[in-house]
Every structure is written in C-alpha cells, then in structure tokens.
C-alpha cells in the first residue's frame, strides 16, 4: 500500500492505494496531477530527514506528501 498525504485545514488527509491495483493507481495519478496542477508541491522521502520534490507521479513511492503553494507571510 502507498499513501498520499495532503496537507489541509484538518492537518492532513490521507489517501491510501494498492500499487498493484491498476484502477487505484490511475486514481492516485489523477489526484497527483490535480493537486500539482492546483499549485501543490509533491515530495517523497529519500532518506532519514531527506526528501526530494517530484514533478511526475511515482507509483512506487511509499509516501508522497503534498503541501499547498507557498506565499509570503
């Protein structure tokens, strides 16, 4: 199972999907495109305390984090 974590007002919303289920993977990929298209940044962990930003959907990523567009505070 893989998880997409989307930061929001409730802390975060988690979407899990089975990487072996084609329909679920397609749905997760659509969610990825929708979120990044709306300005969210997607990141995956690449080591302890390390991460990389991804621009395209990675179905093998165990956990993908999405945070909203950054703005000056």
């Amino acid at each position: 199972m893989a998880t997409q974590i989307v930061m929001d007002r409730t802390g975060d919303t988690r979407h899990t999907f089975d990487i072996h289920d084609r329909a679920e993977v397609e749905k997760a990929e659509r969610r990825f495109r929708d979120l990044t298209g709306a300005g969210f940044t997607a990141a995956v962990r690449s080591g302890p305390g390390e991460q990389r930003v991804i621009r395209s959907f990675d179905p093998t990523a165990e956990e993908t984090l999405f945070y909203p567009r950054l703005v000056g505070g």
Partner: protein
Amino acid sequence: MTAVTQQIVLAVCSFALALFGTLLLSALSLVVARSGSCSRSFRYEIEARALTLLKGWLSPKQRACYERFRYFDVTGSDTGTRYRIHHGTQTNIEELNGTGHHVCKWCFVPDGDLVAGDVMLAQKIALETNERGALGVAHRSFVSSGPRRF
C-alpha cells in the same frame, strides 16, 4: 372576566414567558460553550497530528533539537545557508551566518490556514529542496531583539 382575573392571567403569562426566555438562554449558552470546547479539542488533535507528521520527516538530529528547543536547523539547497525554523506559523524562520549569528528573519507559509507542524514541514522541505524559490516569495525582516548567537 374581572380586572383581578385579568391581572392574575397577565402575571402568570409574564412569569411563563420570563421562565421560557431564561431556559432558552441557558440552553444556547450551553450549546455555545460545548461547541467552543469541541473546536478547541479538535484543534489540539489537528496540531498533534501535524507534529507527528513533521517529526516523521525530520532527521534524528533535527528531531532531537526540535523536541528540546522547539526549533530545528536546515541547510538551504542553493546557497548552503543555515536557517533555523522555530515552532510557529509566522515569521518563524531565522537566517544565521557562518558564526551562528542572527542575520534576518524570513516569512513564507503554505497557503491556507495550516497548523504549525504542517507549516514547519513545508518550510523545511522548501528550503532544503528549492531555497531560492521559497525565498523568492518570502518576506524578509531585519527586526531583531538584539544580537544572538546560536
């Protein structure tokens, strides 16, 4: 109906009305108090969940530092500059120079009303992967309480 009877009926009606009003007000106060308490406890739950997420993405060193001092340091991906992210959601990023002195403060946050844990995690990822992009939208502040060494 005599005048006396009319006065008695009027008094009883007034009393009933006053009693009803008092009960209604009490019920409303109770509802408001309960909803306030629920939203506060909901907020705590959200904040706790966001902090758990943050800690899961911090390095062991950053995590230990955060748990002790409520801040952690990150290194900018483009310039190697050291930043200190303090617990908070506004103007909580401090730029440090090579000797650990305060240089300035930066403020950028993910859009939306997010809690501190989420804000700090987004700031960490942004500075460690796209420092220039993050600072490009940030506000810079030189206000400081005085020279500080870290």
